[in-house]
């Protein structure tokens, strides 16, 4: 399925990646090319096939519901772009 510039704008918005207006058309072309190549999957008969969601050769284990880490705010904040008094500083979330 071909993707148009409007779809690219929507997807970029969903992906939280700013894309300048003049990039939308070239990106649409590029992504359409990749998706056209992917379309060949429709040749495969997958009726009744269970989707494969994991490559692990065992069931997912359960662990005890206990705290194993934490209590070190300095480490948590060590790489933050902005902090004040032991807190992350972020843009206003609620208007």
């Amino acid at each position, binding site marked *: 399925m071909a993707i148009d510039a409007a779809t690219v704008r929507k997807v970029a918005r969903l992906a939280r990646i700013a894309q300048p207006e003049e990039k939308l058309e070239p990106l649409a072309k590029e992504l359409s090319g990749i998706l056209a190549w992917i379309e060949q999957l429709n040749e495969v008969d997958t009726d009744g096939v269970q989707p494969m969601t994991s490559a692990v050769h065992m069931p997912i*284990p359960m662990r005890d519901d206990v705290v194993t880490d934490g209590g070190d705010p300095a480490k948590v904040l060590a*790489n*933050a772009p902005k902090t004040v008094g032991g807190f992350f500083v972020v843009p206003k979330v609620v208007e």
Partner: protein
Amino acid sequence: MSSLTSLTLKAALDGLAAKSFSSEELTQAHVEAVAAAKPLNAFILETPEKALDMARAADARRAKGEAGPLEGAPLGIKDLFCTEGVRSTACSNILGNFVPTYESTVTSQLWRDGAVMLGKLNMDEFAMGSSNETSAFGPVVNPWRRDGGNAQLTPGGSSGGSAASVAADLCLGATATDTGGSIRQPAAFTGTVGIKPTYGRCSRWGVVAFASSLDQAGPIAKTVEDAAILLKSMSGHDPKDSTSLDIEVPDFASFVGKSVKGLRIGIPKEYRVDNMPAEIEKLWEQGIAWLKEAGCEIVEVSLPHTKYALPAYYIVAPAEASSNLARYDGMRYGLRVDGSNLIETYENTRAAGFGAEVKRRVMIGTYVLSAGYYDAYYVKALKVRRRIADDFDQAFEKVDALLTPTAPSAAFGLGENADDPVAMYLNDIFTVTVNLAGLPGMSIPAGVDAGGLPLGLQLIGKALDEGTLFSLGGAIEKAADFKAKPARWW
């Protein structure tokens, strides 16, 4: 000096044990080799002081009779692995100057066993690429050149720094990761050995995530035995990764040199792709002949869904990547580019921080997971993935392992495939099936093309049967007697 850097890991460990030289001497030689190899751009961060400190500590432990299995061996670490107190960026601008406050499980096990860190290795951004050209630090240059030429070639990707540094004798071995071929293709392009173990062998904890159901760590090394030694230290159960397998780790090195007589080797007919260079075809035939001579039985097998593996991968991997990379929001770590509100800050941060290929994949992933397309693309790809895994299950009822070429060409020139994403993706045509099925795969250098560039053969094994791959890899290594080294130009 150069004699110490040309040692294999095994020979270096033997020399250390025999007190022929100290880890400090061995490490110093490698530190100097790394410092002299800037034109390769393989290391993006050198840690010489740390390396020498670790080497002296290793010498002290050895003197006390407490030497671990890798005691004193200098290694390179792919920048995808978080290293405590040492900048880790996944070669992306969005991680900027990220300095982890924790150590990845795989690297912590290497240090537990006595290894020494020389620094962090260049790679494609977030491991997304097959030529190292997507790195925010610029591409790695392959130490190999075509006979008589001086064109700069790719070392492959994404683990290009790992492969180039091992090929150029800058380290005794390197960590790498493989999501669609990122260990095996660079190994093939540089005349080195690389193994992607069974999914779940190595903990993913502390390894920057790309596509979690496909990502797996493994070593790139000079020999099959070296790869076995490194994989043993890297493997093992980790409660911090719920997909890490709680099973015993075999002594992989004990399989190297074992007879392969009577093993049944499958040759998948679907891997004879159109336009395959005659040299690759010839190398494959040669590999078959070597294994026959070693007493293996050759069986033609069919993996009918092979051609659908790459398109399925280019849904599954971007979908997982778009989800994993959502964490780079500029709030808690890494780059932040302010906007007039929160959403704009997210969008500006990610626009500035991600490179073109990462953006492309995040957008494809977002698209195939979005309302209205989820079933048509994502669920369809997961069903095809099951078909591909079933193909292998059926083949492994008849054979013990599969033999294929590793990559459809030798190393190509930097910039050659840069304009066409799909052409670049086709590099992984022989390797990506293994990631989708979660199986182990190994690349072994087996010959050179007409231009003198290395070519690799790939062995694919049953889940958890790396041992058989090490035996077969050892047999191919012995028969190929691959001794060529890149002539030093850097």
